[in-house]
Each structure stands twice: as structure tokens, then as C-alpha cells.
């Protein structure tokens, strides 16, 4: 059964006189537990699509459903709650609050969720350990490398206990070694916690880790492939 369902998602941007059609009637379903990559050249609509799925942007037409929840029908406040409890986000860079330590950054979302002190601390340490950063958890972002910062962002997304994690080019600012390390972390967490991941990339090595590759071009899905599972097992 599908966790995420997109039906006829279109997005038009108006830039002065010109209208840009960023997405053309996208239909897509993502099942629970999938580790899927959204690939395509720059400008193909990856960010736009992820923002619409995350409720950060509204589609011009079409519907987004997570389980039974119709996102396009939610109020601003309900969307905010939806993101807080159901979604995790990892962006390209500068995901963290600079004045908070790695640990505090991970705990932040859980404070907003209203989890207890004790639970927060335990979960934060657990996920920081899983991404290999427990030893550095008292450092602020400025004292962490780009790759470490991205791993903290992944730990933060997962510690909130989301159903779906959206990552928009999470490795774009990383060298290949760090990029692979981040993907490894994400993949293991996805398997261990049975969390659904949808991430965008245009890095072939990152694509190679995905179980499913959805290719966008000019706002349309041009291919949707499942390379054999052996490659990532």
C-alpha cells in the first residue's frame, strides 16, 4: 500500500510576464520503506516537487496524500504540525541552528513536539550515535565539517520519528567520500527504522545507492526504475 500518492501535480511559476511550468501533471506513488532517488538535471523540478510533497509550497493543481491525509486541504497551522510530526527534512546545506550544539539541534524538534526531557536526550544520543557523531555532539555546527553537519541533520530528521524523510540534494556540497558516508548512514537508518526516504541528487554515485530511481526532465517523470536489489545489499 502506498504511503505517498501524487496525482496530477502541476506547478506554474509566474515571473513577471513569463510563466514557467516547473511540473507537468506528475503522478507518483511511494511505498512505505522505500529508499528512492529523484534525479534529473538542474532546473528539472526536483526541488519544486520535494517542496510540494513537504507542504512548503502549494501545487497549481493536483493532490498530495500521505496515507489518508490530503495535504492540499490542510490549513497552514495543520501543515506545520504535519511537518513537525510526520516529515523529516534535510536540505543541501546549513540545516542546523548555528547557536545550538549538535545535540541541541537534534533535540530542538523534539522540544517542539513536546517530548519529555528524558526521552529527548535518549533519542538524540541514539541517532547521533547511529550517524557516528556521538563523540562530537557538544560541538556547534561551525566546529563540524560539512559532512558531519549533514549527518547531524539526518539524525535530527530521524529523531523526530517521521514517516517520510525528504532530502533535497543532501550531498551536493560534499566530496565523494563524505557523500557516500552520508548515503550509508541514511541507508542503514532507513533499513533499521523502516523509514521511507525520498532524496534528490544529480550525483551518479549517490544514485547508485538508491533502490528506486525516478528521473525528472523539464518537470515530467521520464523514467522510474528499480535497479536489482543486489547492488545495495
Amino acid at each position, binding site marked *: 500500500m502506498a504511503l505517498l500518492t501524487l496525482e496530477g501535480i502541476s506547478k506554474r511559476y509566474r515571473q513577471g510576464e513569463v510563466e514557467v511550468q516547473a511540473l507537468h501533471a506528475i503522478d507518483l506513488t511511494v511505498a512505505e520503506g522505500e529508499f528512492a532517488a529523484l534525479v534529473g538535471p538542474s532546473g528539472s523540478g526536483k*526541488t519544486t516537487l520535494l*517542496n510540494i510533497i*513537504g507542504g*512548503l*509550497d502549494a501545487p497549481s493543481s493536483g493532490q498530495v496524500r500521505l496515507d489518508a491525509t490530503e495535504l492540499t486541504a490542510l490549513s*497552514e*497551522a495543520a501543515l*506545520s*504540525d504535519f*511537518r*513537525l*510530526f*510526520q*516529515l*523529516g*527534512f534535510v*536540505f543541501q546545506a*546549513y*540545516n*542546523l*541552528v*548555528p*547557536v*545550538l550544539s549538535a545535540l541541541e539541534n537534534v533535540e*530542538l*524538534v523534539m*522540544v*517542539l*513536539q*513536546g*517530548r*519529555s*526531557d528524558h*526521552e529527548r536526550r535518549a533519542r538524540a544520543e541514539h541517532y547521533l550515535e547511529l550517524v557516528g557523531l556521538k563523540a562530537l555532539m557538544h560541538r556547534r555546527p561551525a566546529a563540524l565539517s560539512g559532512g558531519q553537519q549533514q549527518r547531524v541533520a539526518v539524525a*535530527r*530528521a530521524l529523531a*523526530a*520519528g517521521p*514517516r517520510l524523510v525528504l532530502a533535497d540534494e543532501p550531498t551536493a556540497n560534499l566530496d565523494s567520500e563524505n557523500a557516500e558516508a552520508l548515503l550509508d548512514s541514511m541507508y542503514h537508518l532507513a533499513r533499521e527504522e523502516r523509514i521511507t526516504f525520498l532524496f534528490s541528487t544529480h550525483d551518479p554515485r549517490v544514485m547508485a545507492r538508491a533502490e528506486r530511481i525516478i528521473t525528472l526532465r523539464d518537470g515530467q517523470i521520464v523514467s522510474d526504475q528499480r535497479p536489482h536489489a543486489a547492488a545495495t545489499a
Partner: protein
Amino acid sequence: MSIPTTAAAPLQRLALLLFIAWRNLWRNPARSALTISALVGGLIVVILYASLLEGMMRQMVRYATEVTTGHLQIHRQAYIDDRDLYATLPSDYLAHIEHDLPTLHVAPRLYAAALASSATTSVGALIEAVDPVREPAVTTMLSHLRRGEASLGLSASTSSAASRYNVIVGAQLAKNMGVAPGDELVLVTQAADGSIGNDLYRVAAVLKPLEPNFDRMGVLMSIEAYRQLMSLESGFHELAIKLDDIGTLATDQQQLVDELAALQRQQPLDTLGGEAVVRNWQQLTPAVADMLQLSRSMLIILGFIVVGLASLGMLNTMLMAVHERSHEFGILLAIGMKRRWLLLMVMWESLLLALVAALLGSLLGLPLAHYLATHGIDFSASMPDGYDWGGIVFEPVMRGYLEPSQVVQACVLTLLVSLLASLLPAWHTARLKPAEVLR
């Protein structure tokens, strides 16, 4: 899927926002320090201004009450209206009031217009007769001497052999007439019985400037001397009253009114002189009371202007800060931060800036205000007699008065204005579109 929510969650959220705001405050320490300095400077200006103004106002009240007026005065209505020489309060009234209301200090007075002549010149004079024993318990008028000694008794030795009553004259009058302590002057007046009253007096002392009219025309003498000159055997024009505590002014005034009503029943007054009327210092010196009110309003306006200007710096800082952090705020909104929490965070930050400024401002302003209160600003080199402003004479040393509640009010004003200034950046923050700022 359900996430347990603890009862303390909203508080923890508030604490978290406060925590982030506090950390953000020190993100750009130089900018925060500059912003805080501007607020601290403004606050200190307000505190010092308030302290000087309060000092001046207290001096005004003191002058209005201690030097000549007292806290309350009793007259006959006809004396108030026409300075009617015959509109006197019976002498018994003084004794009754002193007996029935022992906490009040009462000084009787009499007045008359006269012509004062020295060897060289004649000028118009205003005679004020006081009781040399009671007067010092009510006012300090007899101690504000520039030269000579405060004696209103009979002087044994004068150039013309016979003993003379001493008088004390106003500074300007002494100058205009060319008289100094030890000199003689003649007073000519129309006595109560219609005859011409005149006598020779000895100047015992010259007063410091107290009140412009009195300064120019005043001649102080004893009530005994007055009765001889004026052939007025009894009664007083004025009873000046001092309270131990000005805080009980309203109740004491009412008691006096009741007492006078009772006295008038026992011993009815002649109808010509009218009722006995009690007035407090604010009624007696409305110019002073109005000036106090005006000064307070000016203080509030000045406070708003100074603190408002200083908080423009804060407005600028916070606008810059939220602009720089729009990406960060976009991330926070994306991960589920509510707009109103973000708004609260920005307001917390402004409030913290203002709190730090209020703390530092009071810490620095209090000792400065204390210095002004204890040492004051000394103008005596250029103005040895003080200065006269709107009929009120100020001492040459301008002293502040430290009223702690004013410091608290200045701090509250700073916090309020800062909070007001934080609304704009907070509003900017709350309108961020995460999809746009995260691109």
C-alpha cells in the same frame, strides 16, 4: 501514531525559544554591544534628567512651603479678595487651633503697605509682621539672611539714642534704598484707626532673595512692632501652618476646616470680613503646582523621545539580524516550527537586549544620579544667589533627587518601547515563505 506530550511542553518550548534568543544575542557581539550602549545611554539620560527634575521639583515644593508659605494657610475671605486690613482672624483662634490640633505648627502674620524712606530715597514697601518665636517652627524665612542677624526685637543702641524696633529687609529693597544692617529707615503708613502711622526702625539684617515681590518691597517686623505702628490691637491676617508630614495634607486640611467651623459657631465672625478659608500650598501657589504638572508631562515626553531614538538602533539591529537569518528561519519553519513561535523568539531577543540595557543602564545611572543627589551641580560661582525662574528662586547648587521608582519606570519604558520596536522584525519573520528562502 501518537507522540506523548508532557504537561510542561509549552513552558519548555518557551524556555527553548528564550535559550536560542539569548544565544543569538551574542552571535554578533559587537553589534549587540553597540545596540545595548545606545539604549543604556538613553536610559542614563532619562534617569539623570528625571533625577535633576525631581530635585528641582522638590526644591520648588520646599520653597513653596518651607520658606514662606507653609503647607496650609487660613485667611478671611475679604482679606483674600481685597487685602482688607480689617479682615482679621480673632487672636483666640490661634490659641484654640494650637490647643485642639497639637500636631500642627501655626505662625500668625499681619500685613500692610507702607512707604519706606532712608536718608536718600523713598520706596514702596510691604510690611510683613511675624511672631519671632512661632515663625521659625513653620518657615525658614528668618534664617535666609544675606547679612546681619535675625533679630526683630528692640535694639538698644542706635545713632539716634532712642531704642528702635529691628526690621529685616529684602535684598533688592536694601540695594534700592542704600541701607545696610545697622542703618535706620522710616516707615509711613495709614494705621487701622485712620491716623498716619510712622516710626523709625533699625535694619537688623538683609534677606536673601526669596520671592521677587518680597525681595523688592518686603520689610519684616515683629507683630508687637506692627501693632504699635498700625494701631491694630488684635487679630491676624494670616495663619500659616506647617505639617510634620506633607503626606497627611488632605486630612489635616479637612480637620482644620472642621475646627474653624466649630470655632465660628462658638465665636461668630463679623460679616464684613467673610468666612475663614483654608487653602493648601497648591491652591496658594498655583504657578508652582502647574509647573510641577508640566515638568512631569515633559519628563514623560522626553523619556519617550530619548528611549524611542535609542530603540531605533535596536530596530535596525533586529531587522538586520532577521534578514541574515532568513535561511535559518526557513529551515525552522520547514521542520515544524510555528510562525508564532518564531515571532516569539525574535521578540524574546529584543526583550533580552532591552533587559540587558535596562540592567546596565540602572547600574550605571544609579551611581551617577546618586552623585547628582549628594554633590549636585554647583553654579554658585556665576550665580551666588541662585536664579529666579518663573517667580521661583532656585538655590545656586542644582541637586538631583534619586527617586527609585523613576528608575524602575525608565526601565519599564525602555522595555516597552523596545518591545514595540521588535514588532516590525517579528512581523517580517512571521511572513517568511520557507520555499522561497530555502532556494
